[in-house]
């Protein structure tokens, strides 16, 4: 049947045997995929499935290790982003726009290929006219002389599309374009996308929102763990089948088991809100328990733990620690209350990169290694050696700068920093991101040991197996709210994904 489909449609863009490896990770593994002319082709998959890597390769932002890309029948091994945009008409629109806020719409549209007069000066009149034409084509009457920063997100997106149209757009890649839009704006966007398809443009549409995929796309391709799985004609499949295809991996039981039973409630959060990102969240964690948080990227999980930790201001709700209500306005207070946060962005927010391992370990508890108000080098060393042994931090010396360690060992140092404060509540935000397999296993064992020692653990993870393997309970978030809670026994990948996609 696929054969028959191929015969009818001309392939606008064909991906053949594309591979991309990063140290320790295979981002894309031997991908073969055709995108046809006049089609809206949805691509879906979990976090880390390889969608973003595919986009980057298609737009020339990164080079594949192997494989070719055929555009209009011409086979190519690699091309630059400039060639992709101006020669082949491939444009990607990301969630973060590439617009310059202080320039006008027209200036943004013609950025990089400005129209000039004979004397070398910019032909503003002509650019405004052309921009106006492009905007009209998209069904809007915007004044091209307006400054981009005055526009709403939806109109900024339009400007991005208009920019693509003016240089011979053939393939438009959209990465979660509906995420920042309101419902009515999404409708307008969809009409526009269908309109572009009518005009012979191939739209590659990447989304987590299954309902959109069914409303919009002609075909949908599924990726999982860097591999291409299958392509459905959208009309011939359903949400259940799609979800199954997305998670279809077998769960390997590689997660060490804990030997402990949760006891008293340590942290209780009620109706917590954070401006714009998190609404009405209530949960509690017991001593010796690992509470997992599932959800898609941008569901508000990071914002939630940051707010609990006092890193961002809460807009409502209460936090109770061991039954006592506390006000946490600053991480400093959180640390005093015995909370530790292992942040998602280790490089920027976790490690103090220019400092030694030993100082990183004691950074939140210098008072414990001080005498008469001065840091005592001997104590500092002793504490560092203790945690180096306890957490098995692999380094020739604790005097080394932390930035010289591998990701997994850096993460252990950040964890050691919190253990050195004797904290009782640990908030892990994607603790194994960018860490190799061996170190991952060690982190899992450490988390178990912490729970067995009676710590209350909150674990945010976008990796399903990790979430399922480590958590006693799992709360799934969707668009800033709790979409559901699953016990260890009832949780499956399918159920989590269903809740996470808001289905």
């Amino acid at each position: 049947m696929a054969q028959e489909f191929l015969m009818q449609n001309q392939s606008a863009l064909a991906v053949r045997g594309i591979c991309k490896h990063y140290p320790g990770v295979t981002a894309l593994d031997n991908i073969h995929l055709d995108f046809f002319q006049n089609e809206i082709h949805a691509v879906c998959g979990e976090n880390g499935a390889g969608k973003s890597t595919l986009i980057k390769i298609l737009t020339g932002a990164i080079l594949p290790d192997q494989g070719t890309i055929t555009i209009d029948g011409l086979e190519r091994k690699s091309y630059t982003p400039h060639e992709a945009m101006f020669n082949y008409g491939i444009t990607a629109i990301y969630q973060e726009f590439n617009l310059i806020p202080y320039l006008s719409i027209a200036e943004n549209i013609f950025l990089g290929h400005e129209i000039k007069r004979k004397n070398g000066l910019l032909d503003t009149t002509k650019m405004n006219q052309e921009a106006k034409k492009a905007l009209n084509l998209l069904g809007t009457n915007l004044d091209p002389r307006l400054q981009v920063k005055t526009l709403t997100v939806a109109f900024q997106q339009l400007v991005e599309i208009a920019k693509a149209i003016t240089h011979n757009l053939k393939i438009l890649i959209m990465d979660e374009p509906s995420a920042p839009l309101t419902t009515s704006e999404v409708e307008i966007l969809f009409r526009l996308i269908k309109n572009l398809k009518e005009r012979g443009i191939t739209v590659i549409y990447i989304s987590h929102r299954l309902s959109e995929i069914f409303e919009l796309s002609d075909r949908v391709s599924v990726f999982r763990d860097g591999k291409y799985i299958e392509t459905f004609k959208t009309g011939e499949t359903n949400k259940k089948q799609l979800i199954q295809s997305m998670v279809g991996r077998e769960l390997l039981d590689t997660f060490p088991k804990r030997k402990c039973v949760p006891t008293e409630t340590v942290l209780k959060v009620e109706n917590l809100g954070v401006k714009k990102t998190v609404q009405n969240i209530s949960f509690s964690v017991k001593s010796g328990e690992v509470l997992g948080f599932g959800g898609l990227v941008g569901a508000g999980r990071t914002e939630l733990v940051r707010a609990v930790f006092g890193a961002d201001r809460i807009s409502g709700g209460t936090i109770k620690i061991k039954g006592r209500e506390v006000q946490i306005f600053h991480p400093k207070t959180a640390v005093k209350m015995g909370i530790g946060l292992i942040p998602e962005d280790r490089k920027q927010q976790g490690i103090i990169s220019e400092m030694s391992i030993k100082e990183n370990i004691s950074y939140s508890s210098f008072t414990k290694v001080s005498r008469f108000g001065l840091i005592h080098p001997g104590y500092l060393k002793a504490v560092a050696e203790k945690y180096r042994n306890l957490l098995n931090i692999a380094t020739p010396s604790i005097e080394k700068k932390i930035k010289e360690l591998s990701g997994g060992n850096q993460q252990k140092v950040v964890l050691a920093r919190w253990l050195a404060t004797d904290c009782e509540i640990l908030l892990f935000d994607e603790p194994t991101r960018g860490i190799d397999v061996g170190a991952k296993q060690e982190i899992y064992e450490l988390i178990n040991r912490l729970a067995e020692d009676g710590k209350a653990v909150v674990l945010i993870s976008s990796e399903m197996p990790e979430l399922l393997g480590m958590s006693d309970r799992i709360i799934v978030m969707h668009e800033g709210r709790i979409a559901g809670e699953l016990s260890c026994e009832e949780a499956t990948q399918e159920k989590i994904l269903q809740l996470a996609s808001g289905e």
Partner: protein
Amino acid sequence: MKLKEFTLSIKKYAILGVLFVIILFFTIMSDSFLTTQNLLNVARQVAMLGISAVGMTCVILTSGIDLSVGSVMAITNITGSMLMVNAGLPIFPAVLLTLMISALIGLINGMLVAYVRVPALITTLAMMTILRGLSFVLCDGMPVWGLPESFKKLGQGYAGPIPIPVIVMIIVFILGWFFLNRTRTGRYIYGLGGNKEAVRLSGVNTSRIQTLVFVISSLLTGLAGIIMLSRINTGQPKIGTGYEMDVITAVVLGGVSIMGGEGSLAGVFIGVLITGVLSNGMILIDVSEYYQQITKGVVLLLAVIFDTLAKRKD
């Protein structure tokens, strides 16, 4: 790896080498350079610069900058002299009040930077202009004469063979070293340059630290201003013009990264000495004022180029 370690060690000791070469050069060029008398003279000349440099080091380590130190020197000069001459206060309370005023200026700078989030460059640039004007207003543009005779001792006296300002500078450097290396506040200051969010998430009140460094910078410059007042024995509203540039030059020469987070007071001490030796030596071999300025500028530029290139290798 080998190469990297090599460049790193060069970076560490290059500054000492530079000092050595400059000393060698002036020793050959002038007979009077390498004499105890002249070297003590150099030390006394750089004492104030050194004291301010310790404060500026704290600020630059957090990736900030303090342009107001030259004007702080002027305002402490004027207020100190007027408190003693016009208000007739005894030396000790006058000095204490003056130091408190300089600390207050630092507090305003720091709070504007840390809490209102005005960039440090702009805040201290504005403060520099305001304080300079204020210095002239306070004394009507006229020098303040008639300081008590006993006040001279601080800036002009000796303890044994060593000038008192030099002793003060050395004490400030030692205390500064302990503060930056052995107290947690000091380690937070180092962490703030480049890793602000990580430091904050470690449970540190980063805004308070950011405010504190400006207070330290202003307070130490206030101290330098009082020593300066004692040396010249008159309150001068135009004193310290361009002083901020000398201080920044010495700190950057000493290997403190303008991006923050890296550098040591030992390096800064050598940076201060280089600045002092350069000025002194060029006067001895009769280089004109204009060429001295050119030389200082070139030296600063070379230091920054070196710092940037070393960073890029990482």
